[in-house]
């Protein structure tokens, strides 16, 4: 590979291995003076026409305004004033494919999105070019192993330029654009395929059937499926182990069958017994006894599963440390929970509530009664459903409900409800009637685990599509590229050659279809399996005699902030119904997170909400640190650095959000350009300290990865003290009193305090409705209790308030930053030596952090092995969307765009 770069004395260093040595003077001379060409090319008729034709096309490439994931943010930055893609004539990002001639596939291509991408490509007029930006688009990237990811856009579209990097920086994208221009320069009019009638350049639209099915290879796929090749391969693999659910203290309540020892050995202690024995300083169970029992009994005795290939964690009888049982750092406490248990048992009869690992186990049939009691009658009114997730145990599927009280915060409790383990068998009453915020979260559990929520108004799959053949988060679901239950995977080198994951899948690509599938004939590329079951049924508005229309907006739409889609029912101009359709960027974060070691998850959390990677790191670090306890005690300096990074992130994120809210209101891109200028400087700081603009990967358990480089804090001080305030003032001056902003924002998308709470919204959306609930105060973490700042709340909960809350919150963040930068102590940044082997005790933790978008929670269930047994992200963007329909009803489509902008969603976090 020859990379030619202009000679740059001292500053730029080129890898000597890649450079042909030319005399630098000669090279400069050549580049400045000599234009190499041929007479034929210069004056020949054909050559001349080609030159002009190519020059014209390459200098005015119009990209499709189309972004998929993290890389799209870098693409937008490339278009912003700092990198200014207009210098290449490519600033005209078109919203419609019919006006565009280059498609920058920026980000992870998911199966759900693939049909849309193919459609967009087909609609682009010739000549058209495809740039594959980033590792994901090129070959699947870090998410390649996921079940909903296409391993490379080149599986479907012809790609012209690949830009490696994750994500490529704006400069790298410009480099790719220059490569594309060079390619265009070499084209010939006489040889161009698009003027030949016989060349078919359209790609057939793939179908979302039981999996993403490419119609070009339909027959061979059907053949291989019928042969059961995938199932045959899976039979030879080590499956992810399942652990038994923790059992209550009282032995009477145990009604789950425990596996019997096969050879009559003494019954091994259950996991909880062992934990309890340890807590009471009793002797460890005799390892010899444990080892003598059958492997089956072993699995029951020790939470560390037996893996038959002798993976590192598979030592039977290994000591397992357990973490202190508590649902989160700030919670009701053991005494309070005991009280509550007694109260519930007194109210609804014995056996209603049992304490299991610092949470209340509620029988399925009493869930609704208990939920209503907790919400309305309990002395502490649990009116806020923080988080809802599920765990697949060996003997049941457990759904966890984390509840908090808005008016009496910091009293978090957790409920556990269990149902049958079998695929599609679980039934649990829906709590949507009590907390409407459970709506999407229950649908997610249904989608991922197959638990049916009885009484849910609309139990449809939410992230995958209706008809997808599996429930992917179940432990017994293996992805097409599945290789082993935990990383490190087996070697991919054979005879000195490396092979890719594609080669281990019988289909040669990332698909898996159940052997018995026989609906091949019914596959229809026009079938909208993702959205057709989510049609809003609106109320009749009878004033005007108009027809109602259903409008599908997205997933490719410039103002849906990514690949988000809404099915709207409009009566005339008025919205009478709205259903969000999502999952177009579902990248299987949780499934991958359960195979990763704890450390490996850090860079993946960066890619959740890719605008706020530092805040995501923060949340995840806190969750695991909660389990690790004193092993991961964060030193002072690291605490300050963490807060500085998190608050800088908040400023950057809110600036982005305000800029793009204005974009949504119709002020196309100019306000956004103003707003994201300072963000670039903040990103520079991140890059300086952590090595990457967006994917910082900067936090480690117990501290941060590196100390701040020399000069960093001075520059940070300059920016914090001199620049940020000025820029916030400027935004305030231009926008807060602007009549267009007032006109478009006042009284639009109102959410009352009660609705906002009930819908589990979080962050600025919740506070704009006048609810004083900021986790930095309500459930303090890190060292936020040391800083002086105000929790900003709005009054009416309309769009304007949400804008204003963000603006004022930036001021408070700057206030915190000033204090933190001033007080930053010297000292170590990690409690001990840096190590990649992290021992996380068994236990359960939910971290709750106030990320810029709202409450970001990481639920981690560890079984004492190297990776999380269950890893769930309570993402604010996803849950805030529950409120979207409520806010939009009665407004116009133009307002919906603004309302969505004011929710400030990021699709990486919505779909995960």
């Amino acid at each position: 590979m020859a990379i030619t770069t202009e000679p740059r004395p001292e500053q730029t260093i080129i890898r000597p291995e890649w450079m042909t040595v030319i005399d630098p003077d000669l090279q400069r001379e050549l580049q400045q003076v000599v234009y190499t060409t041929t007479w034929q090319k210069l004056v020949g008729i054909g050559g001349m026409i080609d030159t002009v034709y190519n020059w014209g096309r390459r200098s005015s490439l119009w990209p499709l305004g189309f972004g998929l994931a993290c890389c799209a943010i870098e693409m937008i930055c490339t278009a912003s004033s700092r990198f200014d893609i207009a210098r290449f004539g490519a600033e005209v990002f078109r919203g419609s494919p019919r006006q565009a001639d280059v498609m920058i596939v920026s980000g992870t291509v998911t199966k759900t999105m693939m049909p849309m991408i193919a459609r967009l490509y087909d609609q682009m007029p010739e000549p058209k070019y495809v740039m594959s930006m980033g590792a994901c688009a090129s070959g699947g990237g870090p998410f390649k192993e996921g079940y909903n990811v296409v391993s490379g856009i080149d599986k479907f579209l012809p790609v012209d330029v690949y830009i490696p990097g994750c994500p490529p920086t704006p400069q790298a994208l410009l480099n790719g654009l220059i490569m594309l221009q060079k390619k265009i320069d070499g084209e010939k009019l006489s040889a161009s395929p698009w003027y030949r009638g016989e060349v078919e350049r359209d790609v057939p639209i793939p179908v979302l059937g039981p999996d993403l099915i490419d119609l070009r290879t339909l027959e061979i796929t059907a053949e291989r499926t019928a042969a059961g090749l995938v199932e045959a391969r899976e039979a030879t693999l080590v499956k992810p182990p399942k652990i038994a659910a923790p059992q209550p203290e009282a032995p009477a309540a145990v009604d789950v069958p425990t596996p019997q020892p096969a050879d009559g050995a003494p019954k091994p202690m259950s996991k909880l017994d062992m934990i309890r024995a340890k807590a009471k300083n009793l002797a460890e169970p005799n390892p010899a006894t444990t080892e003598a029992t059958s492997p089956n009994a072993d699995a029951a005795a020790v939470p560390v599963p037996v893996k038959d290939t002798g993976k590192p964690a598979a030592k039977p009888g290994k000591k397992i440390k357990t973490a202190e049982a508590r649902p989160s750092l700030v919670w009701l406490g053991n005494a309070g929970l005991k009280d509550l248990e007694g109260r519930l048992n007194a109210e609804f009869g014995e056996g209603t509530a049992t304490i299991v690992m610092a949470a209340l186990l509620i029988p399925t049939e009493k869930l609704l009664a208990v939920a209503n009691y907790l919400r309305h009658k309990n002395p502490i009114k649990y009116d806020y459903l923080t988080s809802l997730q599920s765990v697949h145990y060996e003997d049941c599927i457990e759904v966890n409900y984390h509840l908090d009280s808005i008016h009496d915060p910091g009293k978090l409790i957790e409920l556990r409800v269990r149902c049958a383990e079998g695929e599609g068998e679980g039934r649990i009453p829906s709590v949507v009637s009590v907390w409407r915020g459970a709506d999407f979260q229950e649908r997610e559990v249904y989608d991922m685990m197959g638990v049916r929520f009885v009484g849910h108004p609309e139990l449809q799959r939410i992230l995958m599509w209706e008809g997808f053949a599996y429930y992917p988060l179940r432990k017994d679901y293996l992805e097409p590229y599945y290789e082993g239950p935990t990383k490190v995977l087996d070697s991919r080198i054979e005879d000195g050659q490396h092979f890719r994951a594609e080669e281990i899948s019988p289909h040669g690509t990332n698909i898996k279809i159940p052997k018995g599938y026989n609906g091949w004939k019914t596959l229809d590329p026009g079938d909208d399996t993702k959205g057709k079951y989510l049609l809003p049924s609106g109320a009749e508005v009878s004033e005007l005699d108009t027809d109602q229309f259903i409008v599908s907006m997205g997933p490719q739409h410039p103002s849906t902030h990514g690949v988000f889609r809404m099915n709207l029912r409009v009566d005339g101009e008025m919205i009478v119904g709205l259903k969000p359709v999502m999952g177009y960027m579902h990248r299987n974060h949780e499934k991958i997170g359960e195979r990763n070691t704890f450390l490996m998850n850090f860079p993946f959390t960066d890619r959740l909400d890719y605008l706020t990677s530092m805040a995501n790191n923060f949340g995840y670090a806190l969750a695991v640190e909660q389990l690790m306890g004193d092993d991961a005690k964060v030193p002072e300096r690291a605490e300050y650095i963490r807060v500085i990074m998190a608050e800088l992130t908040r400023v950057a994120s809110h600036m982005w959000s305000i800029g793009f809210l204005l974009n949504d209101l119709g002020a196309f891109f100019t306000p956004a350009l103003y707003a994201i200028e300072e963000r670039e400087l903040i990103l520079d700081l991140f890059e300086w300290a952590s090595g990457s603009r967006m994917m910082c990967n900067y936090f480690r358990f117990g501290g941060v990865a590196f100390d701040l480089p020399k000069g960093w804090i001075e520059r940070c001080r300059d920016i914090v003290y001199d620049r940020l305030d000025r820029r916030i003032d400027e935004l305030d001056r231009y926008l807060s009193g602007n009549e267009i902003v007032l006109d478009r924002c006042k009284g639009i998308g109102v959410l009352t305090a009660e609705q906002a709470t009930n819908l589990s919204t979080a962050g600025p959306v919740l506070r704009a409705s006048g609810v004083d609930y900021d986790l930095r105060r309500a459930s303090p973490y890190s060292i936020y209790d040391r800083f002086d700042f105000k929790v900003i709340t709005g009054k009416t909960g309309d769009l304007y308030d949400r804008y204003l809350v963000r603006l004022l919150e930036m001021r408070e963040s700057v206030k915190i930053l000033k204090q933190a930068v001033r007080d930053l102590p010297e000292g170590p940044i990690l409690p001990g030596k840096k190590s990649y082997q992290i021992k996380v005790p068994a236990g359960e933790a939910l971290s709750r952090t106030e990320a810029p978008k709202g409450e970001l929670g990481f639920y981690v269930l560890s079984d004492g092995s190297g990776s999380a047994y269950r890893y769930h992200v309570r993402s604010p963007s996803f849950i805030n969307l529950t409120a979207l329909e409520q806010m939009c009803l009665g407004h116009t489509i133009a307002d919906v765009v603004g309302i969505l902008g004011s929710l400030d969603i990021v699709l990486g976090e919505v779909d995960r």
Partner: protein
Amino acid sequence: MSFGKGLFIGHWVTLRRFLRTFLLGAGRTLKRRGGGHQILDLWFGDKERGSQPTIQQDARTEGLFTVEYPDERLPVYERFRMLPVLVYDDADGNVRCTSCNICAKVCPPQCIWMTHAAGPTGSPVPLPEDFFIDMDVCMNCGLCSEYCPFDAIKMDQNFELSNYERHQTHIYSMQDLLVSSEYYAKTHPDAWASADEVTERGKVQKKKDQRLQKALAATKPAAVAPKTAKV
């Protein structure tokens, strides 16, 4: 409230900004431009022009400079990371990697694969035989270089990697990955000079010296004191 005032204010803001940019630049805006010369260059007498390839903005300067890539670039921070590379020592050409597999163990998307080298008798040699990194899977997280105990795998800063083909070129083998320690010292001056890496280099050097002494002692028992390689 007069209707439509906001529209004019908005235009005025943009216009003022546009004009102020020129005022602030005061001629520097065009002159600042780095990169090569152009055919028509108004500053042809200026020898310095074209030799300022990076743009570092003072935090106090209002606004934000446009970085005219490819003629100018942003400064590359030392920790900036793109793809991993393997370092070999310039002095003797030895690859630092001992194929201990730690980088492959911490790699989150599992894109690093290597095999041990074997000696002529089949005994394992602490060197990699094959080393592959799949660039279409790598997430540039830098964990490999962070946890490498031998300072052997490092993150490169070259981001200009676009190409037209991926199946032949995006799996980097050892040949594509190797860089000299001299190159690494240039791109990562602070890390190179840091106490950790200096100690590590010293240790390796000491080991090499010992081996050399041993070899020399074995071949020429009565030779003069063997020269040690420069530390």
